């Protein structure tokens, strides 16, 4: 009954009309007509014989064979382009639809009543975000939990999210910490605005330090940076650390800077970091210091206890050297003898002229509260009055922790406490808690109150149990059609990686969300919110594998451009951050403007800032902020494939492999993953001494037939990308270290001065490739042109990834029909990314289990 309902629903949307019964007849007729020539019993090309196809999809082997037919025909791979008498698109459409319908039917029959999705737990990210939104806390929880396993590249996949005793222990610890952080035990801290300047008494230890005087010095209240600091301080703000030690919380930081004495009145850049214990912890961002114009930036974020900020100038040594000043002597050009700038030198030179970044006193306002007590506390304890601990201690037992603080909550009556618990439980379980459930959990509270525990401890027993309950930890979906609450959860975790907000909860409670137009409207709302950033970060991390951006360190000798200081191996932080930000900004923009999927692989624009433009050798762009720039007509850039982040995660820091990059494209963009190599496949022994190029080393992939069958698809895209090195720069020759020509005119920055490059000029890059069907491409531009024509295929793969990510289960052949329907609805929008997401949410794959 269900089956026919589903088929009816999908039929409504598809033309031409086919039924499941058409499958053996229609598909077989198609195959007979267009495939027999190469795949009959005499010439079974690729070992594929249509006589063996069979008609019963319940049989595993038959299923597999027809799945191959579907995959290769719908992607236009088969029949080959060179074939005469190819089917018309209408013909293919009919056959394919019949096939898809049959697969869907089979899938439904196989699954019984289960649906695609099994109950799964929240993953680490979802757990942390959910607790954050439930209790309004900023407790770092992800690192408490074991790393989630990946399946199909994603970390929120049902199949990979197992649970172990380790998880349970850690969930308990996480609950304790979060509840502790959410509970108020004092009067509201006063929100004050402080003006912290670096000439304060507290910052003195660092000004007195001879070493730092070489790099920066105070002029009144302002700090002038002439050079980068070796040591983090003095731009480590101790006064702020003192403040957060007392009162961690949300603070608004206003940093005012100015650039002076730069060549041609140029601007400078600096970075701001969260720091603790004298060390950098997390980058907040890079910002511009404008020439002769004090400009301020405002950052608001949560600071944990003892956290503070570090302000560090960017590439000042290079700026100084480029302006003609010594990086050591205050006002001379020539380099000084070794050791002059040593800490024990009684007359250290003090920089005083030349380019500098001026940092004015920092204004910090906080701690900031939306309300008091904060929302999380009120969700836990309601309107329970906060009274001195001593008072509560008279009639009940208080813990050490409570005793160490000023206030604690006074008991409210049973009715109020229970009502509050019900509100908390309903929020936590993401659906209304039943009266009987509330009774059970309240029993935990009542028992402890009767044992003489104080109100906070007694209530926490229930709070903790909720946070460790399967109803909180799991995404539970009951019937095949998701109810409103389940739908709200799925939508919210998909696009915001967290539990539903008030608006979604409201609509769910009213039963509105399941209405298609309401669902559509809500999808758009979530897509346009700043909270959509969570999707961009996490989805791209997994889909494009950007999560491995730190996995390799570029070779210093081969790629000095990636470093600000060769000797201590400090990477160029602005470049490193920008390459990831670029990809995120790029995709975010494609979604926001609903641009067609073609632009994913071939766009006329890129997101650039000054450093990226420099890295990509494009016309200059000013400043640290990313902005959309139209690319020059003949540029190789544009689209994901030529972005440095992608090029970095598909290489190993020293050399590139066309196979690795080819696999990346096939799996992540085209959706035609290569089968794994046979167990006895040899692997190459990398030899970067320069004698042999990668093309020579991979020769066997062409000459050996059993390699070629897969590698003729894998290698060519990789060869086209050989024009790009492991850090994403365009190259016309390979950089090597042992065999090659010396490059006498090439110099690079080493951190304190320019010097000859250490790499040699190796062989020229040959980025020509021959794609399947004998299509020759000269290089990346031609390849991107070919890719851009495969819009439907790329869109199909993209939707498959969206569905996998949104539902926690990978897509299968049985889902092909529903995916096709999504594509059909986005076709007129050129498969715009926003439309694809919206239509995915509308699809039965999303609204059903």
């Amino acid at each position, binding site marked *: 009954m269900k089956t026919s309902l589903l088929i009816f629903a999908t039929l409504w949307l598809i033309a031409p009309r086919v039924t499941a019964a058409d499958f053996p007849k229609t598909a077989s007729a198609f195959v007979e007509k267009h495939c027999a020539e190469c795949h009959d019993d005499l010439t079974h090309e690729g070992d594929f014989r249509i006589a063996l196809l069979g008609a019963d999809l319940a049989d595993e082997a038959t299923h597999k064979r027809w799945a191959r037919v579907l995959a290769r025909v719908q992607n236009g791979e088969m029949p080959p382009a060179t074939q005469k008498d190819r089917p018309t698109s209408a013909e293919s459409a009919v056959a394919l639809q019949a096939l898809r319908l049959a697969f869907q039917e089979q899938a439904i029959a196989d699954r019984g009543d289960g649906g695609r999705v099994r109950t799964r737990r929240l993953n680490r990210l979802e757990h942390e975000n959910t607790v954050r939104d439930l209790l309004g806390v900023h407790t770092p929880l992800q690192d408490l939990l074991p790393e989630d396993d990946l399946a199909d590249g994603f970390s929120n996949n049902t199949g990979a999210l197992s649970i172990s005793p380790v998880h349970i222990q850690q969930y308990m610890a996480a609950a304790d910490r979060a509840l502790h952080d959410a509970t108020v035990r004092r009067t509201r801290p006063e929100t004050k605005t402080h003006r912290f300047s670096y000439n304060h008494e507290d910052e003195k230890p660092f000004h007195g330090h001879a070493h730092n005087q070489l790099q920066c010095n105070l002029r009144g209240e302002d700090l002038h940076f002439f050079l980068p600091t070796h040591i983090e301080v003095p731009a480590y703000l101790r006064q702020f650390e003192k403040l957060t030690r007392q009162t961690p919380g949300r603070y608004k930081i206003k940093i005012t800077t100015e650039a002076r004495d730069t060549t041609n009145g140029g601007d400078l850049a600096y970075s701001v970091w969260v720091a603790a214990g004298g060390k950098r912890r997390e980058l907040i961002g890079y910002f511009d210091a404008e020439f002769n114009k004090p400009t301020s930036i405002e950052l608001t974020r949560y600071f944990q206890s003892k956290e503070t900020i570090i302000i560090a100038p960017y590439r000042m040594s290079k700026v100084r050297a480029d302006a003609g000043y010594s990086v050591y002597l205050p006002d001379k050009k020539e380099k000084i003898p070794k050791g002059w700038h040593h800490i024990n030198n009684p007359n250290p030179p003090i920089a005083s002229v030349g380019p500098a970044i001026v940092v004015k006193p920092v204004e910090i306002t906080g701690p900031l509260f939306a309300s008091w007590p904060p929302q999380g506390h009120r969700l836990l304890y309601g309107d329970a009055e906060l009274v001195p601990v001593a008072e509560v201690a008279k009639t009940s037992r208080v813990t050490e922790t409570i005793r160490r603080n000023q206030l604690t909550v006074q008991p409210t009556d049973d009715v109020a406490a229970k009502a509050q618990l019900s509100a908390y439980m309903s929020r936590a379980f993401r659906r209304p808690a039943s009266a009987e459930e509330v009774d059970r959990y309240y029993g935990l509270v009542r028992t402890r109150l009767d044992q003489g525990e104080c109100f906070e401890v007694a209530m926490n027993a229930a709070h903790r149990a909720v946070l460790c309950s399967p109803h909180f930890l799991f995404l539970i979906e009951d019937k095949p059609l998701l109810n409103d609450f389940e739908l709200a959860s799925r939508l919210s975790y998909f696009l915001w990686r967290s539990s539903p907000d008030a608006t979604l909860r409201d609509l769910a409670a009213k039963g509105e969300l399941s209405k298609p137009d309401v669902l559509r409207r809500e999808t758009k709302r979530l897509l346009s919110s700043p909270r959509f950033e969570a999707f961009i970060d996490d989805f791209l991390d997994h889909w494009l594998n950007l999560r491995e951006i730190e996995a390799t360190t570029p070779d210093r000798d081969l790629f000095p451009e990636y470093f600000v200081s060769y000797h201590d191996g400090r990477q160029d932080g602005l470049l490193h951050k920008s390459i990831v930000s670029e990809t995120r900004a790029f995709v975010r923009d494609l979604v926001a403007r609903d641009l067609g999927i073609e632009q994913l692989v071939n766009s006329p624009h890129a997101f650039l800032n000054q450093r990226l433009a420099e890295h990509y050798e494009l016309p200059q762009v000013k400043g640290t902020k990313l902005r959309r720039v139209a690319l020059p007509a003949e540029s190789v850039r544009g689209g994901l494939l030529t972005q440095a982040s992608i090029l970095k995660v598909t290489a190993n820091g020293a*050399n590139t492999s066309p196979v690795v990059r080819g696999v990346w494209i096939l799996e992540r963009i085209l959706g035609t993953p290569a089968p794994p190599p046979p167990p006895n496949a040899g692997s190459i022994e990398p030899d970067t001494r320069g004698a042999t190029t990668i093309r020579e080393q991979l020769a066997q992939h062409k000459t050996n037939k059993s390699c070629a069958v897969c590698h003729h698809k894998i290698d060519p895209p990789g060869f086209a990308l050989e024009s790009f090195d492991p850090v994403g720069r365009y190259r016309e020759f390979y950089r090597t270290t042992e065999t090659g020509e010396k490059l006498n005119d090439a110099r690079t920055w080493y951190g304190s001065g320019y010097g000859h490059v250490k790499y040699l000029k190796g062989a020229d890059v040959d980025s020509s490739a021959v794609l399947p069907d004998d299509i020759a491409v000269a290089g990346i531009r031609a390849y991107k042109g070919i890719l851009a024509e495969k819009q439907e295929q790329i869109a199909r793969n993209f939707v498959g990834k969206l569905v996998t990510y949104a539902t926690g289960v990978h897509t299968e052949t049985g889902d092909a029909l529903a995916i096709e329907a999504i594509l059909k609805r986005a076709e007129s929008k050129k498969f715009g990314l926003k439309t694809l997401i919206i239509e995915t949410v509308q699809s039965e794959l999303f609204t059903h289990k």
Partner: protein
Amino acid sequence: MKTQIPRRLFLKSSGIAVGLPLLESMLPTSARAADGAAPPRRMVCIGVPFGFDPTAFVPLQAGRDYELPSHLKHLEEFRNDFTIMSGLSHPNTGGGGHKAEAVMLTGAPYPDYSYNLKNTISVDQAFASHVRGQTRYESLCLTTYSGSLSSTANGVSIPAIHRPSEVFKKLFLASTPAQAEEEIRRIDEGRSMLDFVSEEAKQLNKKIGTADRQRVDEYFSSVRDVERQLKMGREWVNRPKPEPIGNSPNDVSNNAQQAAKFRLMVDMIHLALVTDSTRAISIRTFGMHHDLSHHGKEAKKLEACRKVELELIQAYGGLLRKLKESKEGAGTLLDGTMVMMMSNLRDGNTHWTYNLPSILAGGGFKHGQHLAFNQPYLDDVANELNPTEGKTKAVQKKIPSMGKDQQPLCNLYTSMLQRGGVETDRFSTATGRLEGLDFG
């Protein structure tokens, strides 16, 4: 009642404990070797991600009379205390590369890079569950940079401790009576809550479909396991911890200094074993020289890579030395402790996952030999060391076949588990014990 030695023990002020002789009276009563009783068995597993340069690590001859290659020369004084092995690997971990670090101690299949891994229990945990309850800590999982080698029965990675000071605290930081009372209360609270939520899970399972129950079942059994752990933990709360030996170490925060970090952890491992705080330890270390490991055969880089490898070997020797200098019963602590080191890659440059470097010391085995399971491999290494004239270096090497010129690494783990008293014929992908490795 025998008294245990009071607090004032001699030590270096640097905070690193010297290798102390294991004084009988320092051990908590349970672990003392009663007359004639065998000392307890322990297991230390060290996993490193980038292998070793074969020409420096693999002896060219098999058997007892092998010549020590350059790295192993630094372990010369322990020649009769360790067995070097070659020709071992985990079957079906072909394309895993770095990802296959997850299966170093488990042997679970990881055929290619995009495989959805279903990991299994690691050998140290298999051993730990066997000696459960006899020590305060079931096991210690450590690291000197990130990640963990150990995993539970259903393949979940057990978080590793990366600060030696934290280990020190675990071993020695005693609780005041008030703290102990608080701890007991916390444990009782925990058990009560777990009891409650496990009931929730039971009720939930009745309502949801059969297909959905798998994870809830896992949840249920995990909750039960933690309840059991808490119960056991409760028994240890009131047992005194050993008196601290030395001062808490000064943690090295810079991950680049793997040798320094590893040496600090070696100290902690020694202390943990000497005080019988645990008998199963795993440590993931020396994972910061990835770039060097991809030397592409360039002389300078290869040299630098070998230097790092040597630091590791020497630190490993340091651990062996400490254990050997601690007396236990009629022998040494090394006799009672299996110290195994291996890597998931033969070497970082090739990324090959066969002919894995492996070395086992202590544990009372008959050592002093090179167990070679792949003779052609020894020939290859010999050839690389001294390339014969006219012979062109093959760019592609042949893949050994499991069972013929390659044996499962889990055979070694099986022997180790058997030595540890675990009744098992084969652990994970093993085909049996490791041939040639006998008990002393």
